[in-house]
């Protein structure tokens, strides 16, 4: 039971980390673009998100998505056998035990496929939006502190602006920022336990449930603590590995 919670936690944080990186990169690119208005807009967005609690963002997205999905009375087929939107969320094809299962409309609801529940969507989006503000600041400060000589030598080698950005600035900066970036990712992983507030079955929710059903409080809590410790520990081990590898 706790294993299911662990899998759900990892699932949420994995997708949220990818989304965070994309959002954060986009915001930081806006911030370092030499266009004044885009800079102001991204500054405004980052400043607003940073000063609002993550739980408020998650609750907001949960209420929105929950409202959206519960208002659907009959399932809507967007693409036949691939994408169905219904009361229980979005259903997509998924591989179960090496067999691809396609969602299909049956007499009562939908069979097959994987349900992406509104809780999952809102938790992932909320976490990734919140963390992306911090990640964007890390990215943009790294790109700003990029040595000017590198840029000059790149331009002397006839690199275009975008080539310089994607082949020199970003790979080089990743090395510098990886400690603080991974710190934010660990924060995201720990914040994913907020799913307990909206009813997403992640590690903490499942722990609470198993305490209620079995009554073994201390055991369940220590297993949960151990799992969180191992997760953070392995992430930091991975960080050490990458920093050692990318050392110049």
């Amino acid at each position, binding site marked *: 039971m706790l294993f299911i919670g662990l899998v759900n936690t990892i699932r949420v944080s994995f997708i949220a980390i990818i989304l965070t990186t994309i959002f954060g990169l986009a915001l930081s690119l806006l911030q370092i*673009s*030499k*266009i*004044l*208005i*885009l800079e102001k*807009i991204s500054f405004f967005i980052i400043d*607003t998100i*940073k*000063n*609002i*609690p*993550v*739980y*408020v963002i998650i*609750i*907001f997205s949960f*209420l*929105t998505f929950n409202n959206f999905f519960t208002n659907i009375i009959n399932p809507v087929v967007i693409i036949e056998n691939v994408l169905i939107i219904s009361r229980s969320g979005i259903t997509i094809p998924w591989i179960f035990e090496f067999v691809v299962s396609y969602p299909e409309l049956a007499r009562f609801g939908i069979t097959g496929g994987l349900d992406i529940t509104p809780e999952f969507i809102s938790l992932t989006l909320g976490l990734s939006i919140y963390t992306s503000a911090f990640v964007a600041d890390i990215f943009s400060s790294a790109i700003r502190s990029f040595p000017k000589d590198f840029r000059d030598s790149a331009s002397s080698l006839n690199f275009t602006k975008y080539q310089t950005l994607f082949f020199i600035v970003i790979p080089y900066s990743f090395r510098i920022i990886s400690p603080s970036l991974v710190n934010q990712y660990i924060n995201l992983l*720990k*914040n*994913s*336990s*907020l799913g*307990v*507030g909206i009813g997403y079955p992640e590690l*903490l929710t499942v*722990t*609470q449930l198993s*305490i209620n059903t079995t009554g073994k*409080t*201390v055991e369940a*809590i220590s297993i*949960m*603590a151990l799992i*969180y*410790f191992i997760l*953070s520990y392995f992430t930091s081990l991975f960080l050490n590995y990458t920093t050692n590898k990318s050392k110049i």
Partner: protein
Amino acid sequence: MKTFLKLKDALFSNWHITFLTICSLITSFYIIYEISLWSIINATFINDFQICKDNFNIGACWGFVYEKWETIFYSQYPTHISFRPILSSLILILPLLYIVIKKKFDISTFFILLVSCILSYFIMAGGFFFLENVDTRYFGGIFLTLFIGVFSNILGLPLALLLAFSRNSNNIFVRYSSAIFVEIFRGLPLIATLFVFVIIFPLITQDSINLDMFFIICIAFVFLNAAYLSEILRSGINSIPSNQIHSAKSLNFSKYQIICNIILPQVFVKMFTPLVNQFVSIMKESTLVSVVGMFDLLGSLNLALGDSQWRIFYIEGIIFVAAIYWLFCKILLIYADRVSEKFYKEYRL
């Protein structure tokens, strides 16, 4: 004219910059127009449900906030004595504002906040003079958010100092016990720690001490904050060059004098911004108490949304609550900026 030229250079120096500027201007104006249309021009400001509902798809209904602001601000507190939560929130806010405006940061700020904390608690709890006694489970709303933020920092700071110094001590037992304490609190998610406290505390104390939720949460936040603050303080302590301490020893300073006169003043000046950042993040994380059953600002908003009639206007409610949090955090961050500027001028850090 010079600024105009500068602006022109920044906005229209190049053809593709000009293109992007115009595009972003048009989109941002369109978004601002739509938002203002929704939030101000088409919005209703009366707490009449029928008018709000007719206007649902067109504009915002700030009547929801007007109808429910009492619930959002002081949740379940008895309504006939509602002046007390307002008074105690003011007692917490005004000293904070005073400190921010005066750019104060010394030992007196600590005592000002401590006194305001104690005073606001007694006004809320009552039980003396003409104030009737109110159970702590009715505490909530804006008071709870502010109280947890201020209280956990006031009591967390001395504890964090103790932890930070014991982490550097020569005694292995002291060093490891403090390290374990800090790592446990930092390794677990905040909400998990709160759950552990809420579940474990009644198990440990059994019936000997009748602790209620409010105290358990306050204790949990003090410990949490102490663990986080101690890491900040420890990095400050380690950053002080050891030759300062050696020269102090050669001048026959006692250990206590070295800590009070040499280490601490430098640590607090150096680590001021991270300390305020921690204050801000605790302020934000106090929303988590609504998960374990206390009604802080967000929790009492949920309470207000329990009214099924007004539930459809949740967006307005959340914007209102988020704006309050934003304001608190912004005030503290402005304080951090101004004081660190002052330090920069005074000490050339």
